[in-house]
């Protein structure tokens, strides 16, 4: 795989026979193996669900498993071609999470259909739509991987991305409610015909790209120290702009769209990026102060925030109220039923938890797979973020570092906010669990995120092909008499 690179090195540098190391392995084989493993786990999960729900066990399951593997094999081939040195763990982890999510949604569909049949109603199943969304998301993943050959090209469009991101974020709040209806108390949806989209999901990534590029170009500004108070270097007042901007945007999202999750996610990610860019803890302290201030304001102004906090303190006290602790209490009952080992896939009653296939899917998984299974899934998320962070550390340009760090953090923060909410660690703020939950926009946006991470990890692990043999202006005298030999063209896929 790497022979063209090695072949080019030998004659060009001549004297370093001992110093040449074998070129870095691409590890695509590992990726394929793990993808196969993930497909096997998903098929096993589907089989257990069918067995426990007393469906007919047929060869169908094998076909589903193979179709799933085929879908990700396409992604694998694309990665092999367009990002050959990308991290081998990211795609299999995503495949496992997405697959288990599909199985869980299917399982909840079965339960809901049964419930509806008993009540004599008809309901729409969610799993065909989610499979469709997965396919579309993988297509988008491929598109991003193919179009963006080098993540550094994104910096050229950073302000465009920032503007489009803001526009998308504000869109549902501004549009009239026949296009942007209020669903579950939040005005974050766009409804066009049968399709509904959450533009905010994409806005997050666009704004993140903008912020990474902005911080790289204005990095020195934030390093400049202002007055020194109590032994701490405070930043200058005019440099506070971006933090205040981020704070205002998140507060705006909270006020106009009543979406706690997105606003928390947005502010947290930008805070972390500022910290990564400047290595100054003072930004975190400042940000947290702003956050506490914003939280207090929000708490005093909005009843829905008060409601959420009351539900968080004691879900059972508000159990019977409208918009009360019913959801969280049911989720906790579900997790309690699951216990350490879970009830077994397909043997629990996850349909008793409201929104079991979106925001509360962690409760459904905790019920059927127990603590052991949920912990395994959380570890898979951790591995995913870990590999992203590692790529960010290893990549050789600052924009890549910031973008990679920000994207990985965005991913793991989503998991923290939603699982923390379901398990009553923090107030519940309705966002989806990446790749697991039912929801097209979230799936599409997270696949874009993964494509960008793969692109960065590819840049990080790709062996350096050295500088291109470009004539250097004013060659030093020591080299003036040597002839510039045309180096055999190094194959550069970019």
């Amino acid at each position: 795989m790497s022979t063209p690179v090695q072949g080019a090195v030998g004659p060009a540098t001549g004297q370093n026979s001992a110093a040449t190391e074998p070129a870095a392995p691409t590890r695509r084989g590992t990726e394929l193996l793990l993808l196969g493993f993930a497909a096997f786990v998903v098929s096993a999960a589907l089989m257990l669900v069918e067995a426990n729900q007393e469906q007919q066990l047929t060869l169908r399951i094998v076909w589903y498993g193979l179709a799933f593997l085929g879908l990700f094999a396409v992604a694998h081939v694309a990665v092999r071609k367009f990002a050959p040195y990308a991290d081998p763990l990211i795609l299999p982890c995503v495949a496992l999470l997405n697959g288990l999510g599909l199985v869980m949604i299917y399982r909840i569909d079965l339960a809901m259909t049964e419930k509806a049949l008993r009540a004599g109603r008809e309901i729409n199943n969610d799993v065909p739509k989610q499979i469709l969304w997965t396919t579309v998301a993988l297509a988008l993943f491929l598109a991003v991987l193919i179009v963006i050959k080098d993540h550094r090209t994104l910096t050229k469009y950073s302000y465009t991305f920032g503007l489009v991101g803001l526009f998308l974020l504000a869109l549902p709040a501004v549009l009239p409610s026949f296009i942007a209806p209020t669903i579950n108390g939040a005005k974050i949806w766009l409804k066009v015909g049968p399709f509904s989209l959450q533009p905010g999901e994409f806005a997050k990534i666009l704004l993140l790209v903008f912020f990474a590029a902005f911080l790289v170009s204005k990095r020195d500004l934030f390093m400049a120290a202002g007055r020194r108070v109590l032994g701490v270097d405070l930043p200058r007042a005019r440099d506070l702009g971006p933090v205040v901007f981020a704070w205002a945007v998140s507060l705006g999202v909270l006020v106009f769209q009543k979406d706690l999750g997105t606003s928390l996610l947005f502010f947290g990610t930008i805070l972390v990026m500022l910290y990564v860019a400047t290595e100054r803890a003072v930004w975190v302290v400042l940000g947290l102060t702003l956050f506490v201030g914003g939280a207090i304001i929000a708490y005093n102004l909005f009843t829905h925030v008060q409601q959420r906090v009351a539900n968080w303190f004691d879900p059972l006290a508000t159990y019977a109220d409208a918009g009360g602790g019913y959801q969280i209490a049911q989720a906790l009952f579900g997790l309690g039923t699951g216990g350490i080992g879970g009830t077994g896939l397909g043997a629990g009653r996850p349909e008793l938890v409201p929104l079991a296939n979106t925001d509360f899917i962690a409760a459904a998984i905790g019920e059927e797979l127990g603590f052991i299974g949920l912990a395994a899934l959380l570890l898979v998320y951790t591995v995913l973020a870990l590999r992203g962070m590692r790529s960010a550390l290893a990549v050789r340009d600052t924009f890549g570092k910031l973008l990679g760090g920000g994207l990985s953090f965005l991913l793991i923060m989503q998991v923290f906010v939603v699982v923390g909410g379901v398990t009553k660690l923090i107030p519940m703020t309705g966002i989806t669990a990446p790749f697991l939950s039912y929801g097209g926009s979230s799936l599409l946006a997270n696949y874009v995120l993964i494509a960008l991470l793969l692109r960065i990890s590819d840049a990080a692990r790709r062996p350096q092909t050295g500088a291109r043999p470009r004539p250097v202006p004013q060659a030093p005298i020591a080299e003036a008499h040597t002839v510039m030999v045309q180096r055999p063209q190094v194959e550069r896929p970019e």
Partner: protein
Amino acid sequence: MQLTRAGFLALLWLFVLAALRVVRSDLYAASGLRVAVPGFRKSTAAKMRGKAPRQLVVTHGALAGTRITLDGRPIMMGRADDSTLVLDDDYASTRHARLSLRGTDWYVEDLGSTNGTYLDRAKVTQPLRVPLGVPIRIGKTVIELRS
């Protein structure tokens, strides 16, 4: 029933362990990022002399902590996108400096930069041999060679 339940959880954890195995094998593999193996740098000071430099480490600046394994090919530094080390630094030129191997020694040369390249305290005006552990300064970035 109980068997399949436990079996599936075991399968899930096997996947996690397989993933962690890859993480582990990667820690020691020769990739762009080299992680210090315990016991690896016990007597770095003693080995400093008479050992060929094996990696370039950025010690200060925006890219601090970045390591590049030296494999004999020249290392270009500057703001240009195709540099080996891409410097986002207002004080760096597009093609700022080059590190190249001659015989067994690495030499640094300035490629006509605006703000200059410094080896320790001295401005680099001609190719200079870079000893191990001696800082090279380009704008706000400081790099050094390590074995």
